[in-house]
């Protein structure tokens, strides 16, 4: 008989794998990616290809050069690339997209030790990096190519004057017929992805719900205008950020109650920035700020173990 394997218990494990989870996220992003391409045209596809390509390539080369185990197979680099792309305008210069992707992967992820070791969300940080370096790529948004819209401003920029005049209709907002980044405009596609992620058990439904709910309720309290509050929910990167970026495992608290506090904090900061800050959009900043607070929230929300003495 051949030699028996001797190893520590348990001797069986679930079928769920990290690669499968990442694949599920990619699948959940698919409707949004398709909608973005339909709405903004082939240019959007190029942005996605460049971001994903450079993300995967830079992680591959980093591992090769530093002689680390190759990790591109876990698909997390592809996820980061795609989320980053969906955060950019379809007419973003491709070289800027590439720079953002390399920054997200190398500086934010690999230099901290790779998957699971980064404290900030690479895609969020990549987006903010591009926004600061090349103001045009993120701020504002390219107009959909499938319809003619009069204004070139995004809804949030219009709303900065606390008015809903000149905004696309709410149904148009749901479909994504408005200015904005590739992935953030089509609410229906994002919600489809949300449903898939919850169905697959990849994320808990609370995080996006609390994030979005907080923004809605606080907007309502501040403006006492139901329509305006609804516009706040559907505009900017709120839906996309709440579903795909505030639910990132690595950079959010590990406890379920911690995740809820995290989501609430994101909503609060988003509203503060939108109503009182100088930037029209607050989702990325709020997520980044909460990423930094995440370890502390995790500590506060640690469960009391059964039989644990103080």
């Amino acid at each position, binding site marked *: 008989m051949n030699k028996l394997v001797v190893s520590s*218990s348990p001797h069986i494990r679930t079928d769920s794998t990290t690669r*499968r989870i990442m694949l599920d996220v990619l699948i959940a992003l698919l409707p949004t990616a398709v909608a973005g391409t339909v709405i903004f045209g082939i240019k959007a596809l190029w942005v996605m290809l460049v971001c994903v390509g450079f993300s995967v390539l830079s992680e591959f080369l980093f591992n090769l050069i530093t002689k680390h185990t190759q990790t591109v197979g876990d698909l997390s680099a592809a996820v980061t690339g795609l989320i980053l792309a969906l955060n950019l305008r379809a007419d973003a210069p491709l070289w800027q997209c590439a720079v953002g992707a390399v920054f997200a992967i190398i500086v934010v992820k690999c230099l901290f030790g790779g998957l699971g070791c980064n404290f900030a969300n690479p895609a969020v940080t990549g987006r903010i990096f591009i926004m600061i370096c090349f103001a045009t790529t993120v701020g504002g948004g390219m107009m959909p190519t499938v319809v003619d819209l009069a204004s070139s401003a995004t809804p949030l920029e219009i709303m900065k004057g606390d008015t809903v005049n000149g905004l696309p209709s709410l149904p148009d907002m749901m479909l994504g017929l408005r200015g904005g980044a590739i992935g953030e405009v089509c609410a229906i596609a994002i919600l489809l992805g949300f449903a898939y992620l919850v169905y697959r058990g990849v994320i808990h439904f609370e995080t996006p719900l609390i994030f979005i709910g907080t923004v809605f309720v606080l907007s309502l309290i501040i403006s006492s205008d139901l329509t305006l509050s609804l516009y706040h929910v559907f505009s900017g990167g709120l839906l996309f950020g709440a579903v795909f970026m505030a639910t990132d*495992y690595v950079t959010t608290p590990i406890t379920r109650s911690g995740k809820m506090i995290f989501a609430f904090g994101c909503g609060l900061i988003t509203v503060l920035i939108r109503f009182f800050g100088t930037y029209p959009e607050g989702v990325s900043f709020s997520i980044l700020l909460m990423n930094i607070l995440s370890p502390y929230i995790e500590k506060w929300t640690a469960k009391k173990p059964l*039989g644990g003495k103080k």
Partner: protein
Amino acid sequence: MPRFMLGTTRVPHRKNTAGIQAVRIPAPATVTLPMSQHIGAPAEPTVKVGDAVYVGTKVGEAQGFVSSPVYSSVSGKVKKIEPYLSSNGRSCHAVVIESDGQMTPDPSIAPPVITTLDEFICAVRESGVVGLGGAGFPTAVKLEAEKKGIIKKIIINGAECEPYITSDTLTMTVDSAYVKKGVETLMSFISADETVIGIESNKPRCIDEMRRVFEGNGKVRVEALPSTYPQGAEKILIYNTTGRVVSEGGLPSDVGCLVMNVTTVAFIAKYLETGMPLVEKCITVDGSAIKNPMNVIAPIGTSIEEIIQFTGGYRADPAKVLYGGPMMGVAVYSTDYPIMKNTNAIVALSEKEAKPKEQHNCIHCGRCVSACPIGLNPTLFARAMKVGDSSERADRLTEAKIGLCIECGCCSFVCPSARPLVETNRLAKADLRNQQAKK
């Protein structure tokens, strides 16, 4: 009683052998009887090479308070007494007996006469019984707590939460009369208010049968537990049946509970009737490498290989063979190892299942945190173990409550990145022990 129940991990049940009668295997040619088949001090051999022994002849005497005697499981001659290294690395002696194939019982065997609690505990001690659910803790030692009059609740563990294993299921269905007798005997010596029998709800037949035999006994409650792992873990079982919490470093008796495996209880009843000590075990033989999964009754000390061959051998090359179930069982180096008192299953896994899952970095998904029935955060232990400074490491491990980990395996089971969490926890515990010993 609606209460929030702990233990939520869904492991596969694979109870293929449930409802199949156990088959007794013929006398093996030899049996190997390790002197340490329990938690505590190993027994000391009381026989010499060449001595004639019978089924039930004492071959090892208990040493000290936490220990247990060992009896011959066949009739024949003592062939040798050799050093023995158990599969978990402990060394002791083993008595090897060559069987004459007759299985003649020791003529001196007679039912014990018991009237007092002391006599009862003494009889339990002499029966050689230990926790048959797998723990292997000498049962008599647990009963000692009753001398101080602190036991208020007797909890009978019929959860059988490990995949594959059905030997307790058999006890509860086929030997239900003995379970009843055992519980009644316990209740007569122990002044407990109540006995709770905890059974996972995936065994409705066991629940029905237990409810039937205890019908009309107001002091016995059969509690259906969720069929999620690890219902049978002592602390979880106590919480889920009584709401009581055993605190860190404490014993069930601290909260007035006595936990006994259902097969242990049935065995005690049989012993009191016949006087035959613990010499054979009902064992579930299953796993993806086993051709005919079944339950067998085999003399203690029979080799794993012999038992597997009796059931019809392998379906596929075994790559990993376990004492016990796949969640907490111990992998053996060779199938020459004997089955022991606390062995309740032999699980042989094929190449495909034994192959380690691909490891990734921890992705901080929180599945292990949600899965831990105790409410620990296993990622903290893994992180603490990376700290170089030994005293800081110790502080971090203590703060994260490593001492509470029951090594149930839930965290490792659910981890999508296949992190070796339980393994790390074992290393961490050993690390902490070493450092405390140095001080």
